[in-house]
């Protein structure tokens, strides 16, 4: 890359005692990117974020911020800001003082920092709450105060540690849209840590999937969903029907592990016709109405149980009885080859 990345980490390693939380991670994040680090808890994603922020010192490797090595620098010497999972608002200060804090410690004069803090609060539509204490706000409002506090100092990179984790579903979806908008308006790099794959898929330009302290796969949401590289990613990002090497050989006619997404499968009474279509017979175990679609669970005669997700489409609803004989079919292009673990 000829353009200097906003963040470059090289060989980043962090050990806590005998456990390795982060294991030789290499990563480049472009300026202005909405980048997500996705993984289950304990996968090392939050530790990478904390290493970038400077709250932890790496056991090995370097962190560069716009080409400048900041590995040994304290958090207050790094031009990145964090939105914490628990928001970490100062409980003894008003909302306005919380937001103005970063400006205050930088020596910005009182009236100027007041104005800038009010503008930042207005941007998250909380200017009328400026005089309140954080304890008098709801979870979503606190979250937006935390966001205003971190952005008012105009960092080059904003780190967000599961910022929506504590919100209920409706609010979370609303904040996802808002965050994305704010990121676009400010034009700064967002590094977003989440364990919610749907959240990561909706918001990100690129996603790094973490597993056991390493990056399992890095790509656009589309890449990850359509072409998961490993069994772990196929299983963690969305749901997948996984076929081990033997089943792949007999059912799909290819060597190695494979996966197919539930919505890429169709169920029919008769075997399908058409080039590049393959099918397998089985019996229907369960048919579940999920509103926007119908989820059907089928035991294939060849052994595995597969899940099929079909659109809630009038013509499709074949009121199959439980135990009924069906054919599950798929297009050859929808089969994804997985890299075996450790390869």
């Amino acid at each position, binding site marked *: 890359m000829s353009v200097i990345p906003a963040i470059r980490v090289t060989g980043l390693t962090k050990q806590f005692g005998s456990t390795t939380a982060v294991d030789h991670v290499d990563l480049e994040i472009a300026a202005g990117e909405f980048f997500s680090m996705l993984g289950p808890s304990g996968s090392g994603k939050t530790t990478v974020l904390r290493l970038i922020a400077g709250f932890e010192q790496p056991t090995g490797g370097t962190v560069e911020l716009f080409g400048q090595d900041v590995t040994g620098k304290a958090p207050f010497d790094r031009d990145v800001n964090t939105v914490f999972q628990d928001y970490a608002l*100062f409980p003894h200060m008003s909302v306005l003082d919380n937001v103005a804090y970063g400006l205050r410690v930088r020596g910005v004069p009182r009236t100027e920092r007041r104005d800038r803090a009010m503008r930042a609060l207005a941007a998250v539509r909380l200017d009328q709450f400026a005089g309140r204490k954080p*304890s008098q706000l709801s979870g979503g409002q606190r979250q937006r105060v935390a966001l205003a506090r971190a952005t008012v100092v105009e960092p080059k990179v904003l780190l967000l540690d599961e910022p929506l984790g504590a919100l209920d579903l409706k609010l979370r979806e609303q904040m996802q849209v808002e965050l994305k908008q704010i990121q676009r308006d400010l034009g700064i790099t967002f590094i977003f840590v989440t364990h919610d794959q749907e959240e990561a898929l909706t918001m990100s330009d690129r996603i790094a999937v973490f597993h056991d302290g390493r990056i399992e796969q890095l790509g656009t949401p589309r890449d990850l969903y359509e072409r998961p590289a490993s069994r772990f990613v196929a299983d963690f990002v969305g749901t997948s029907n996984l076929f081990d090497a033997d089943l792949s050989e007999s059912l799909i006619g290819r060597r190695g592990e494979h996966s197919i997404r539930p919505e890429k499968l169709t169920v029919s009474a008769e075997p399908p016709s058409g080039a590049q279509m393959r099918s397998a017979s089985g019996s229907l175990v369960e048919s579940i109405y999920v509103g926007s679609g119908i989820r059907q669970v089928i035991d294939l005669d060849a052994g595995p149980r597969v899940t099929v997700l079909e659109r809630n489409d009038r013509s499709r609803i074949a009121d199959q009885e439980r135990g009924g004989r069906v054919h599950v079919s798929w297009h050859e292009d929808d089969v994804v080859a997985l890299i075996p673990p450790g390869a």
Partner: protein
Amino acid sequence: MRLSTLSRTTLAVVTGAILLVVYLPLLVVLVNSFSTSTSLTWPPPGFTLEWWVKAFESEGARQAVATSVLVACASTVVALLLGTLISFALQRFSFFGRETVSLLVILPIALPGIITGIALNNFFRTIAGVPLSIWTVIIAHATFCIVTVFNNVIARLRRMGTSLEEASADLGAGVWTTFRLVTFPQLRSALLAGGLLAFALSFDEIIVTTFTAGSGVTTLPIFILDNMFRPNQAPIVAVIAVVLVVVSVVPIYLAQRLSGSEQTRH
């Protein structure tokens, strides 16, 4: 839980009896301080303010109050400084022997005062070669006053976690600015509660004081002990005892209010 009327009545009576045993004598002292009898006969033959006037006019009593206040303030200040520092060391850093140090810090409050007294008396006079004075009392009191500050501060630090300080550093504040603007305001009520308890502990301490006070250093409790059995001094002692009760109870009450309101706030 539902209790039968009988058990409820029994429990109420027992509770009342215990509280009576604890507080009735205090009440007697209060009444006696207004008694016209110099030998504290009961019931008091009459009431007078004479002893209160005398107590306030008594040079010895005023001196004793001043000494006690000075000792309590000084040992509280020492306890606040050292107790806070050790709390930070033990809560924020892990090092070899941390648990041992933690135990050693708390131990003085459990040690019998007479042991602390004898040990410090020996140490000051024979090993350190320091003559006993008001300063030796202050040092001795600080050894157990530290514990109340330490307990309050470390509990607060534990509950606070490090995320507020991280947020402050993240926003560009250096270590001292973070302490001044974030950590200290968070600790304030814990320091106040710990400090008030320390003050109260020191103010009515007698055993350790007896062993570590230089000649002429008379704290209020020692003054009471000295005058208790002198003829015609008993009502004055009662007056001082009442003052001592009030001065010790108020800080305890405030400290409890403080930690109580903290708990409901979270």
